[in-house]
C-alpha cells in the first residue's frame, strides 16, 4: 500500500487531480438540476463528465505512461530487483487513482445530494456509475497504450485526439448517455463484459515494452489486438442501455377523473402531477378524458408482424407522456394533447372527418391545444424553444392569451364554445 501511495504522490500527473475534480463537479452542477431526487438521472448526470475527463485523462495517462522513457530510466527499471510488470502495475494503479477518483468524487457528491430524499431505484444509479467507469477505464487504456508505444512527444496528443475519435466512432453504441430516463436501464451483462474486457486490456499493458525497447521485444504488442478487437465487437454487438421491464403494480398511480400512472423512480414529480390531476378534474364535461394515461414505458411494448416486418403496436395502448428534464411543460403538453385528441375524436374515424379541415380551423385547434397545455401547467411561459411557423405561433399565442385570463369561468366558456363549434363542423353529434 505504501508503495502505491508513493507512486501516487510522485505521479507525473498528480497536478491534474485538482483540475479534474473541479472540472467534474462543475460539469455536474453548472447544468440543469432536475436530476436531484431521481436515482437514474443522478447516475446519468454524474456520468456525463466521464466523457470530458476521458479526453483530458487519455492524454494524462499517456503522459504518465511515457514518463519512464522521458526520464531515460527505462533500462534501470528493466534491470530492477522487482519484476518490470510489477513496476508497471504500480504506475498504472497510480494513474487510475488520479483519473478515476475525480469521477468517483463527482458520483459521490451526486449520491449525497439525492440521498437526502432517497427515492426508490438505487440500483439504476449503480448502472450509470459503471457506464462512466468504463469510459474512464477505456481512456486510461488508450492513453497508456499510446504512451508506451509512441514516443514521448506525440503520445499524449495522439491519446487525447484518439479518445475524441473513439467517442465519435462509438457515439451510436451508448458510450455516454445524457439522461437516465426511468424506462431504460444499464444492462448488467453487457456492462460486465465491457468492464471485464477493458480491465483485461489494462492487465495486458503491464507487459507492454516501452517505445525504446528493442525490436524483438516489441512483438508482444500483438497481444493487445485480440482483446481490443473483442472489446470493439462487444460494444458493437450489445447494447449497454436497454429497455426495462414495466414495474407492474409498483407503478404509482393518481386517481381522479383520469387515472395517471408514473414510474416509482419519479415519485418526486407527484406533487406537480397531483396539481395537474386536480386541474383535469376541474375541466368542463365537454372535454373527454381518456380513462388512463401512463408515463412512457409503463406498458410493455407490443409488436405486430405485417409482411414479416415487426411494427410497434400503439393501437391498444393508453396514451403516454414523457417527463423530459423534469419540465412540467413536457408532461402537461403530452397529457393535454391526449385529452384534446380524445375530445375532438382524432382517432375516431367513423364519427369525425378531420381530413377536410380548413386552415383557420387548424389555427383554432392549435390555439385550444396550447390553451390546454398552459392551463394544465398552471400558467406562465413555456420553457422550450420552437421552430414552428409564424402562423402556428400566432395561434399558440392566442391560446396562451386565453389561459392568462384570471377568470377560469371565462376560459372554460371560450374552450367549450370552441370544442362544440369545431366538433359540430367535422364530427357527427355524439349520441
Amino acid at each position: 500500500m505504501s508503495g502505491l501511495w508513493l507512486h501516487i504522490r510522485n505521479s507525473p500527473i498528480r497536478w491534474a487531480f485538482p483540475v479534474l475534480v473541479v472540472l467534474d463537479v462543475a460539469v455536474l452542477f453548472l447544468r440543469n438540476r432536475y436530476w436531484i431526487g431521481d436515482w437514474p438521472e443522478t447516475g446519468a448526470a454524474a456520468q456525463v463528465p466521464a466523457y470530458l475527463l476521458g479526453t483530458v485523462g487519455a492524454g494524462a495517462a499517456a503522459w504518465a505512461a511515457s514518463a519512464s522513457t522521458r526520464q531515460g530510466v527505462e533500462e534501470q527499471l528493466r534491470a530492477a530487483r522487482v519484476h518490470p510488470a510489477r513496476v508497471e502495475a504500480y504506475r498504472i494503479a497510480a494513474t487510475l487513482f488520479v483519473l478515476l477518483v475525480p469521477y468517483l468524487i463527482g458520483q459521490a457528491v451526486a449520491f449525497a445530494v439525492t440521498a437526502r430524499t432517497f427515492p426508490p431505484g438505487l440500483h439504476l444509479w449503480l448502472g450509470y456509475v459503471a457506464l462512466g467507469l468504463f469510459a474512464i477505464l477505456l481512456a486510461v487504456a488508450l492513453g497508456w497504450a499510446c504512451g508506451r508505444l509512441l514516443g514521448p512527444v506525440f503520445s499524449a496528443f495522439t491519446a487525447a485526439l484518439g479518445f475524441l475519435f473513439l467517442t465519435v466512432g462509438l457515439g451510436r453504441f451508448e458510450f455516454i448517455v445524457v439522461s437516465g430516463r426511468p424506462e431504460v436501464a444499464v444492462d448488467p451483462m453487457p456492462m460486465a463484459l465491457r468492464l471485464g474486457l477493458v480491465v483485461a486490456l489494462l492487465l495486458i499493458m503491464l507487459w507492454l515494452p516501452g517505445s525504446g525497447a528493442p525490436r524483438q521485444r516489441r512483438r508482444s504488442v500483438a497481444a493487445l489486438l485480440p482483446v481490443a478487437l473483442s472489446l470493439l465487437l462487444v460494444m458493437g454487438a450489445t447494447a449497454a442501455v436497454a429497455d426495462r421491464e414495466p414495474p407492474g403494480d409498483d407503478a404509482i398511480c393518481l386517481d381522479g377523473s383520469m387515472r395517471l400512472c408514473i414510474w416509482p423512480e419519479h415519485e418526486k414529480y407527484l406533487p406537480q402531477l397531483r396539481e395537474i390531476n386536480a386541474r383535469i378534474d376541474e375541466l368542463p364535461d365537454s372535454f373527454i378524458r381518456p380513462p388512463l394515461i401512463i408515463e412512457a414505458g409503463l406498458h410493455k411494448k407490443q409488436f405486430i408482424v405485417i409482411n414479416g416486418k415487426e411494427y410497434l403496436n400503439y393501437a391498444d395502448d393508453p396514451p403516454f407522456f414523457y417527463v423530459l428534464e423534469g419540465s412540467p411543460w413536457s408532461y402537461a403538453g403530452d397529457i393535454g394533447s391526449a385529452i384534446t385528441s380524445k375530445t375532438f375524436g382524432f382517432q375516431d374515424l367513423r364519427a369525425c372527418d378531420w381530413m377536410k379541415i380548413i386552415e383557420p380551423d387548424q389555427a383554432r385547434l392549435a390555439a385550444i391545444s396550447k390553451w390546454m397545455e398552459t392551463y394544465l401547467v398552471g400558467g406562465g411561459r413555456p420553457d422550450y424553444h420552437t421552430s414552428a411557423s409564424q402562423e402556428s405561433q400566432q395561434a399558440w399565442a392566442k391560446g396562451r392569451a386565453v389561459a392568462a385570463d384570471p377568470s377560469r369561468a371565462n376560459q372554460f366558456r371560450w374552450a367549450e364554445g370552441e370544442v362544440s363549434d369545431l366538433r359540430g363542423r367535422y364530427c357527427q353529434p355524439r349520441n
Partner: protein
Amino acid sequence: MISVDVTASRETDLPAATSPLRLFLAVRPARAVLAITVLLGALAAWFGLIQTPIPTSIEDGKAIIPLWRMIAMGAGILPVLALTSPLADLELVATQRLRSMQRRYLAGLSIGCAAIYLAICGTVLHPAVVAIIARAWIAWFGLALLAGAILGWRLAWTLPAATAAVLWYWGYSGSQHYYWWEFSARPHNDLPSLFLSAALLAAGLVAYAATPWRRRRWTWRLPRPKPSPPTSTSTSTST
C-alpha cells in the same frame, strides 16, 4: 550552438561539415509534425462532416458536433509540439542565434502547417467552414503556445484539450446557436470570436516571447520594490 553540434552529430551520424539549420532540424520532429498535419487534414476532409452527439449543459437531446471541429484543435497544437527538443536543457543557455532560428522555425512551421491543413480541408469542405477552421486554428495555436511556454512544449496539448471540454460542454446556447466565446463553432463572419481568437494568439506569442531574461528586463522597468526590512530576513534565517 556547440552543445547542439556535439550531440546531434553523435546521435544521427551527420557529416561534420553541415549547416547549423540542418543541425537545428535534426533533433526536432518537424517532419513528423508535417506528416501528421497532412494526415489530420486528410481525416478532416474525409470524415470532417461526420457528426457526433455529445453531452452539453443544456439540451436533453445531445448537441451535434462535427468531427472537423475536433480535428482543428489537433492541427492547432501540432506546430507547438514541434518545438520540443531532447536538448532543451542545454539550449536553455543558448544565445541569440538559436533563439532566432527557433523563432523562424516556429513561424515557418506554423504557417506551413496551417496552409497545408487548410488547403487539404478546402478541397472538400465549404469555404465558410474552412474560414471557421482557420479562425479556430489561430485560437488553438495561441492556447497551445501559452500552455507550451508555461508547462513545456510537450504539454502544449493540455490547455487546448481542457478549453475544448469547456467550449463544447458550455458553449452551446441551444437551437444551433453558440455563445460569443465559442470560437470553434461561431459562424465564419462573427467578429467577437475573431477578436477572441486574435487575443488568444497574442497571448500565446507574448508567453513565447516572455523568456526569463526578458521578464527580468520588463520587471526592471517597473519601480523596484523596496529592500525588505532586516527583521524579516533575520526571522527567516532563524527558523
